[in-house]
């Protein structure tokens, strides 16, 4: 797995480099087009031209990215969590979720347990954030907690933990900011061209200067300008394609990780099936956050793998996980992937295969111990009671977050008292016993 991360990291640096080149090129083009001033000096019998405007544009582009990246580095996860409306919870509020996160931390051998956040929303989704595996966080919606059973939840958390272990979070944040910067700069550039007279002014300045020299240079410069306009249109698209391609690959990898950590692909597969029914309100999801969720709420209905998708189609992800059969290694995932997508070209790095001969199974991996709510065959009644209990637990957790008080009556009723309850006594609704509130 470590080798997989390394291969991932290497490829990420290439992609990051590619996007940085695009960013700097965009900066250069914009600067050069708006201020086509040049300086020149003579060295060794040659005349060197320095495109001052272009260099300044490059500098500005880089600092726009650098500033945002720095902000994301220092306060990234807190900003993200605030944007998603997530609140950190303590273990008492939902012990099971905490236990699952801790189990997956062990399975993935992360250096520290990620913080756990809850999004107060009844849609079904989850995401991970953080600048490195030591300071990471996972967030799940309250709806997810009340809908999924323990196995499914474990699959989802394993997927998110795999994102953290692969350092996807960190990388996608930086790449996302770079993409944002490129789009921002070109947008500003386009506006500057179309709406301001400055562009015309610079054109005039251009031709007048060109006429003083030879007409040849003027034509060359004009051609350069046209090319730069075209590039400024293409660059954001290019950067977007790079970003999306990388995002899809990382989703596959995280799915594989989820299967490898839990040694139970069906958990994640059935969880994806459930989540795809209600991944969130399109109107409420921010476009910047959407790619980070386990299923992109804005693209949930897409059944095909388009160039602009951040995630592979859900059906395909489920099919791959189910095709893994009894195997639970990266190799099994890659084979299933090949079978589903109909290609032999496998997206997993070659080095991953060396490390993927399935290691001996441990008892817990072969026969998971009986968990509450994981009995071999649940009767419909039991299943209903279980889902009722989950709803109850989730409700209690949310009330905890809003500082409700809980009172256990001897008759078995659990009274939930809102923080602004005005009286000093509570009467039990079932047995009528009067409880004093301290």
């Amino acid at each position, binding site marked *: 797995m470590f*080798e997989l991360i390394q291969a991932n990291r290497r490829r990420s640096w290439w992609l990051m480099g590619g996007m940085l080149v695009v960013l700097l090129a965009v900066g250069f083009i914009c600067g050069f087009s708006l201020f086509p001033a040049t300086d020149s000096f003579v060295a060794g019998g040659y005349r060197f031209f320095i495109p001052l405007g272009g260099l300044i544009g490059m500098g500005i582009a880089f600092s726009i990215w650098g500033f945002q990246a720095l902000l994301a580095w220092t306060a990234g996860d807190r900003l993200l969590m605030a944007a998603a409306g997530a609140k950190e919870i303590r273990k008492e509020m939902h012990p099971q979720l905490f236990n699952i996160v801790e*189990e997956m931390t062990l399975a993935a051998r992360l250096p520290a347990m990620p913080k756990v956040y809850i999004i107060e929303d009844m849609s079904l989704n989850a995401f991970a954030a953080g600048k490195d595996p030591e300071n990471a966080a996972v967030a799940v919606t309250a709806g997810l907690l009340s809908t999924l059973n323990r196995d499914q939840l474990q699959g989802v958390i394993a997927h998110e933990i795999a994102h953290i272990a692969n350092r996807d979070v960190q990388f996608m944040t930086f790449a996302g900011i770079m993409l944002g910067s490129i789009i921002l700069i070109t947008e500003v550039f386009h506006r500057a061209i179309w709406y301001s007279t400055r562009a015309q002014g610079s054109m005039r300045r251009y031709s007048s200067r060109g006429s003083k020299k030879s007409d040849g240079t003027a034509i060359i410069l004009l051609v350069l300008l046209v090319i730069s306009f075209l590039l400024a249109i293409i660059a954001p698209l290019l950067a977007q394609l790079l970003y999306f391609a990388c995002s899809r690959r990382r989703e596959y990898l995280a799915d594989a990780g989820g299967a490898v950590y839990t040694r139970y692909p069906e958990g994640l597969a059935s969880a994806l099936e459930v989540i795809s029914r209600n991944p969130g309100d399109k109107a409420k999801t921010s476009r910047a956050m959407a790619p980070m969720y386990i299923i992109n709420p804005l693209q949930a209905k897409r059944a095909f793998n388009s160039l602009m998708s951040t995630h592979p189609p859900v059906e395909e992800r489920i099919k791959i996980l189910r095709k893994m059969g009894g195997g639970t290694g990266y190799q099994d995932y890659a084979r299933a992937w090949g079978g589903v997508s109909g290609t032999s070209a496998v997206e997993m790095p070659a080095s991953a295969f060396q490390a993927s001969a399935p290691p001996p199974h441990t008892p*817990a991996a072969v026969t998971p111990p*009986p968990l509450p709510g994981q009995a071999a065959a649940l009767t419909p009644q039991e299943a209903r009671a279980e889902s009722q209990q989950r709803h109850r637990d989730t409700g209690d957790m949310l009330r905890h977050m809003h500082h409700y008080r809980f009172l256990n009556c001897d008759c078995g009723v659990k009274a939930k008292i809102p923080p602004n309850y005005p009286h000093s006594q509570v009467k039990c609704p079932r047995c009528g016993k009067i409880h004093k509130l301290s």
Partner: protein
Amino acid sequence: MSMIVLPIIAGLVLLAFVAWVIGIFNGLVRLRNAVKNAWAQIDVQLKRRHDLIPNLVETAKGYMEHERETLESVVKARNQAAEGSKQSADASTQSTLESGLSGALRNFMVVVERYPDLKADTLFANLQEELSSTENRIGFARQAYNDAVMMMNNKVEMFPGNIVAGMFNFNKESFFEIEVEAEREVPKVSFS
């Protein structure tokens, strides 16, 4: 001219070679430490299980008057395992003790199914979640240990790691495997 250039090139090649060996060596050390750490994690989780059981038994006692034997066997297995780890018994003995405890706990959990009142007790439900999570953790910690061992062994056995491993005496680590036959068996289910 070549009098100077040749030694310089030779020196650079040697330097690159040394740097390469150092890189592999450090990689091996990192992997070995990962294996050690993963092993320590298993012990942490086993300890956690030892600490949890007294509370669990204490809570269950009130409801399970007629299951004294089951409870006693759990407590006994727990105490033996805890004693073993305190006196740092050798790995195979400890492993036997721990699987004895696992068996006793499994038996206990089956018996619990017969006591709906006990299952409905919030405190007990919480403890049960903790216990099953601990069982999971032990499993995942062993799984992670085996993953770490596999990576170490791949590196030690495969070229070029095997050369460096041979030079500095890095050995293959052994996987965690269940030694007790009873625990390997698939539990029997009867619908009588």
